[in-house]
């Protein structure tokens, strides 16, 4: 399979990159590793006229402590992030998530953290070859009028399949986005729109440059788990991340995020208040499970190798397991 024709830029400064992105807008895509992008280009699911590579932007590969945050350049490779001392010390959950991505030799060396966050949401009816889609007809995301997975859907229901997405959201990450008008900050949760066609809160002239994760003032307990059918080189059937802090033996802060369900990671907001002040218990873990099932029920559709019913139930199981694991693990 061949790549379609496009113009290729590899700017050496962010300013230059923004300039090019601004010039071509929506018809330009960012290449930040390419382990997903190249496949999508070959399958013609996207047909940009311009590809802008970030490979020459050294400043996007830095990982530094800045004030009360760890700042990870969006262009840092996944293995670079996973091997970074500060990441390992403060956010082992992120290391864990990265270890689940693809294959070490390809995705983790070639793929970048920003690229993983911006992974195009996936769908069995969308991530197919041009030939395949010709036979089945176009979907909402490829210029058609109907969603092939859910007949009456108003927007694309594709699945956010990034391993790092629920983790960065659970860690209350802040994303730095640079555009023509300058730089702005956006919470990781807000970064995901929930719409498969336009999954990220990014303007046509904007580029994701940094992920800032606040260093917690107290030791955090965290856990990431995913269900998949193969032990590597696979996307999650469902995944979940939980981050909590304690005051004495009671939960002080709690965040549970379930993903690979719909186009955006799902934060179980209610639990963030109802779990405060409680101690870990089987009852509490079950509440997390039930809350997750309720939260994903209206979101999951039949667009993955696993059925809707199964994924909904597994969202509950994964949510319970990360909650239990985070709340009973030793704190860091």
């Amino acid at each position, binding site marked *: 399979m*061949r790549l379609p024709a496009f113009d290729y830029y590899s700017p050496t400064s962010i300013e230059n990159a923004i300039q090019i992105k601004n010039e071509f807008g929506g018809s330009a895509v960012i290449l930040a590793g390419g382990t997903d992008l190249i496949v999508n280009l070959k399958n013609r699911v996207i047909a940009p006229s311009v590809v802008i590579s970030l490979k020459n932007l050294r400043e996007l590969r830095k990982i530094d402590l800045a004030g009360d945050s760890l700042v990870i350049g969006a262009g840092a490779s996944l293995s670079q992030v996973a091997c970074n001392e500060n990441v390992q010390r403060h956010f082992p959950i992120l290391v864990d998530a990265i270890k689940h991505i693809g294959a070490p030799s390809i995705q983790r060396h070639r793929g970048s953290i920003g690229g993983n966050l911006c992974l195009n949401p996936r769908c069995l009816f969308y991530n197919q070859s041009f030939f*395949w889609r010709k036979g*089945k007809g176009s979907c909402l995301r490829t210029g058609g009028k109907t969603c*092939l997975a859910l007949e009456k859907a108003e927007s694309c229901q594709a699945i956010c399949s990034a391993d790092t997405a629920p983790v960065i959201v659970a860690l209350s990450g802040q994303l730095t986005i640079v555009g023509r008008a300058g730089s702005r900050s956006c919470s990781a949760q807000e970064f995901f729109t929930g719409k498969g066609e336009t999954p990220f809160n990014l303007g046509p002239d904007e580029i994701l440059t940094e992920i800032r994760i606040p260093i917690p003032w107290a030791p955090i307990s965290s856990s990431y788990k995913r*269900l998949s*059918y193969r032990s590597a080189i696979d*996307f999650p059937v469902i995944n979940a991340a939980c981050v909590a802090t304690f005051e004495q033996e009671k939960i002080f802060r709690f965040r549970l995020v379930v993903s690979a369900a719909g186009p955006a990671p799902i934060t179980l907001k209610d639990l963030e208040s109802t779990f405060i002040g409680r101690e870990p218990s089987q009852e509490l873990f079950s509440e997390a499970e039930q809350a997750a099932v309720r939260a994903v029920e209206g979101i999951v559709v039949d667009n993955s*190798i696993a059925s809707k019913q199964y994924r909904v*139930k597994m969202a509950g199981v994964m949510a319970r397991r990360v909650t239990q694991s985070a709340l009973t693990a030793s704190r860091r």
Partner: protein
Amino acid sequence: MANPDYHLIGKSLPRIDSAPKVSGEALFTGDLNLPRMLVGKILRSPYTHALIKTIDISKAKALKGVHAVITGQDTAGEKWGVFKYTRDQQLLCVDKVRYVGDEVAAVAAVDEETADEALDLISVEYEELPGVFDCFSAIAPGAPVIHDSHPRNINVAVKIEVGDVEEAFKKCSIIREDTFAADEDSYFMMEPYAVVANYRSDGSIEIWMPNASPHTKAKALSNALRIPLTKVIARKITIGGAFGGRSDVFPAEFITCLLSIKSKRPVKVVYTREENSIATRMGHAMTTTIKTGVDKEGRVLARDIVSYLDGGAYSSTGPIATSVPFLCHEQTYRLENVRFHGYRIYTNKPVRGMIRIHGRSFACGIDTQLDMIAQELGIDPITIRLKNARRPGETTATGSYVSSCGLVECIEKTAAKSDFINKFNNKKPFHGIGIGINSVQTGFPLGIRGGSQALIKFHEDGGATVISGVVDNGQGNDNMLVQIAAEELGIPVEEIRLISADTEITPTDAGSYSMISTFGGGNAVKRAAADARRQIFEIASELLEADPEDLVAKDKKIFVRGAPHAGIPMEKIIRKSLLIGRPIMGTGSFSPEVDQRREWVSNPRGQLSQAFSFGATVAEVEVDPETGTVKAHNVTCAQDCGFALNPMVVEGQFQGGVAMGGQGGMLTEAHHWSQGHVLNPTMLEYKIPIIKDMPNIETIIVESIDPVGPYGAKEAGMSIAMSAAQAYANAIGNALGIYFNRFPLTPERIFDAIENRKSGIETAWDLEPARVIEFDK
């Protein structure tokens, strides 16, 4: 087992093809580049079922860089089928397409971009027809008919009846009827399919492609292209896996040849992974209803089986595929009264062929039901198998004499090594152990299938070249041939060259399917080497003034037994033979003794194969009951391979068999569908296991020393590949106390069975049974 009489055979030597494959030196069809070569591309049907109204190729032909465009109009509707009575696949569709992927037109152009552009410029007007996508809908009255010649879409109907089944059921103390089903599976060879064709001005055509029999391909192409067989030359090339999926003849070979003839240039077609999945072959989806009756001890007295095989759009190896699951079963188990109805049914899906683990629902059904019966009787899975397992010297239900058989030893050794009975009786929660057994043929007749011949010539330095028609498509056939010749000639492996699988040079061979290569091709090379050695000894006996009977060939020397120091170097004998005008050329041939009157549909009785291999696999698993995921911890497998010519290669085949049959075949590998469109044509969503998923594997080689196989060898690994699925299924069943009847056992299915658990000795799901089809006519 090391045999002191052999110096190379029976030893674990590295395969001669390993280093080139590891280093990247080995070249596959996709790597071939000939001067002036064009890129070929095929336009395929995007519809499951449609009439072709018009095809307009004028724009494509006019595109700069396009050298040839062909459609069904160029082929006179030429059709392919393995048997004369199954020729139903037009090599390029003329009037109708029957599945998504059916070949409609093809182009050859200077590069891939131009070829792609040319495909886009071909306009085809279709009239869509309703399709059928499963066996039960396809045979329903009023269903759309895919081939007008086949009402109710029944492609092949096989009926076998032996003994008095009804009478025998009356004598049974337990009778069960259960239905088992399995989805389609695929091969996912590492090498996607590719063809290079080179038509030359003398009217001959060379062709390279992954294959299981260059001679069979050449014959089919000669017929279809109407070029004399002598001028159709299938060349040798490295092949990256077959697993039964390269045996057939595909339209792409014919199309690439036509493009080369038309453009008068070499043409290369390389399939995408998706094309490899949909437009070569797949495994059949299958539903099998099994009624079994046993006596009080658990001996099977009667069995009645009906199988529906979803064959996809065309026949392919239809009659064989329909019969083989039953035949493996009748080899494995003693059956005096048995009836089998097998129906291969057309659907608007990709074409199904033979696959290394063919018949999951059949074999798993037999072995699962046997465990259910054992539970009813209060006996264990090992005991009930030993009561019914095949022994040597017996004859199968359809009349094949079994001369060598180590099945009982396989069962006993796997059970002992895995501590089966103890683990079965003292179960840990959510841990399970299960056994599967099976048997395969070492070649079967294919209508006019011949034997194998080999030639051996010598070099003046004492080295030799073996010339054989056997093809190696990954299993190690090349090494097998060389190791045998080296043993017989007393020449080191490194000093033997091999020319194989080239129809211009090598003599004919039966093809590397149905597990015949060692038994057939190996024997032919052994005989050719023995013939050459006889000639060598004649000359040596004159030089040594010794009786040829007393001579030994070893380490490139010929000497009188017991006196290696006084040996004559091989090169001296070779030179001498040239001087005296008696150049040495060994020839040998082997044709297995099978009943050539046996026919798959019209006469399914008589000796099917001269030898059979037998195997047993035990799996130990742990199930996560909250997610349905399975972790396989240990697999113990034993196979009677006759004699292990190269134990390392044999063990590798066992391990591959566990990966494909058990880990992949039973846990994850299945195609998913949306109205005839396959949802997972590539490796990302078709979950082939990777090395990290694999369990620890214990291999046990059982050697029954077949009287006819070379050194007693039969075949390596297939009885493991075909028993691993049952072992996994029964182990998971044992872990949960559930008898599964839909395969593969994906986490989702296991989870569903746990949630909807039934009481009593029942299968997990109520499936529509496969019933005998009454014909109207």
